[in-house]
């Protein structure tokens, strides 16, 4: 029905309520996304506490296709296949006014981490590269999808922190793949919901003055008047989809006998609002694949 870059509304007819709900649950909780998980803070002299700043950074949506990455588990090393590294370095000089740190201050580092790990052994090889927190084999810029679209936060104007004069924030953020069940920051949709199509049925023929009254009652203009000829008019249901089920048309005496408000049991109007990592139609196709995988898994385990 409607498709923008970030949200989508479409109809599903003929499925059961359980399947519609399963799609909604999978869209919210089981589609993987990339979000910032580990924040390595080098310097934070602002009034925002470290953990609050890390929490806010985790919630920033990142514009990257999560299907290009793998999951990072505890014993894996962070490399270019499972981590995206960002850097944030903002300083407010003494004497200048306060700065608001927005999310476009996060810079992508395609070559991996720049923070050097402190190694305990005293043998310092000045010839070898210093060890950092990630082990990137090759630069992420070489992956063809990222050449044209560098990885940035989806919305550049999200306020992350505010700095007064003399305060500084210097940190490195690692983003990994996860699903919404673990933490809501990994949910790829702002929200996803469905409603059933309302059905407005006129039980009797409603004519002339009653028809005018009915049409004026509805706040969203569901009813229309059609002319039968000979000066008589009849009310018809023109736009049942717009009906909000406010029950205004059956208020008053006797209207309950003339108008019946119901919902069509198998017609679902889905709305998906994406946070921007993937377009909503891709999100839905991925949700279908995940439902298939889940069912396959149960079936194979059963036999």
């Amino acid at each position, binding site marked *: 029905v409607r498709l923008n870059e970030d949200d989508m509304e479409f109809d599903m007819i003929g499925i*059961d*309520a*359980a*399947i519609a*709900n*399963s799609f909604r*649950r*999978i869209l919210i909780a*089981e589609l993987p996304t990339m979000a910032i998980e580990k924040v390595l803070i080098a310097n934070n002299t602002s009034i925002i506490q470290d953990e609050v700043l890390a929490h806010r950074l985790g919630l920033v949506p990142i514009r990257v296709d999560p299907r290009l990455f793998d999951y990072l588990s505890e014993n894996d090393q962070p490399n270019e296949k499972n981590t995206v590294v960002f850097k944030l370095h903002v300083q407010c000089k003494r004497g200048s006014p306060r700065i608001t740190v927005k999310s476009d201050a996060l810079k992508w580092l395609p070559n991996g981490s720049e923070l050097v790990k402190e190694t305990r052994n005293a043998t310092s090889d000045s010839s070898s590269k210093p060890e950092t927190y990630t082990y990137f084999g090759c630069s992420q810029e070489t992956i063809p999808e990222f050449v044209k679209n560098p990885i940035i936060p989806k919305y550049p104007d999200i306020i992350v922190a505010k700095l007064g004069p003399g305060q500084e924030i210097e940190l490195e953020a690692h983003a990994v793949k996860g*699903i919404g*069940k*673990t*933490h809501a920051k990994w949910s790829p949709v702002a929200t996803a919901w469905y409603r059933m199509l309302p059905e407005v049925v006129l039980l009797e023929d409603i004519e002339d003055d009653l028809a005018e009254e009915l049409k004026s009652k509805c706040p969203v203009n569901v009813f229309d008047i059609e002319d039968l000829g000979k000066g008589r008019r009849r009310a018809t249901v023109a736009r049942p989809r717009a009906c909000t089920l406010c029950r205004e048309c059956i208020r008053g005496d006797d209207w309950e006998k003339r108008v019946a408000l119901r919902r069509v049991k198998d017609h679902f109007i889905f709305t998906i609002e994406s946070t921007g990592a993937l377009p909503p139609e891709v999100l839905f196709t991925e949700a279908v694949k995940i*439902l298939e995988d*889940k*069912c396959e*898994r*149960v079936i194979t*385990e*059963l036999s």
Partner: protein
Amino acid sequence: MNAPDRYERFVVPEGTKKVSYERDTKIINAATFTIEREDHTIGNILRMQLHRDENVLFAGYKLPHPLQYKILVRVSLFFVG
């Protein structure tokens, strides 16, 4: 404080089977399936499909506790055939 780790909701630990099956002692032709690490997403769909089968007398699912991540599906048939 006592809440289990969030990844426990979908990661099946080593040793436990994903789906296990126990026949009901007191009622003939009835059984309970325990599916580990699943929730309403699968349970409701299973229940709906079981209702559509005409041999099924009783089909239902429940989550025994919201912090224990498994579902019990109880099915009973008219007759085994």
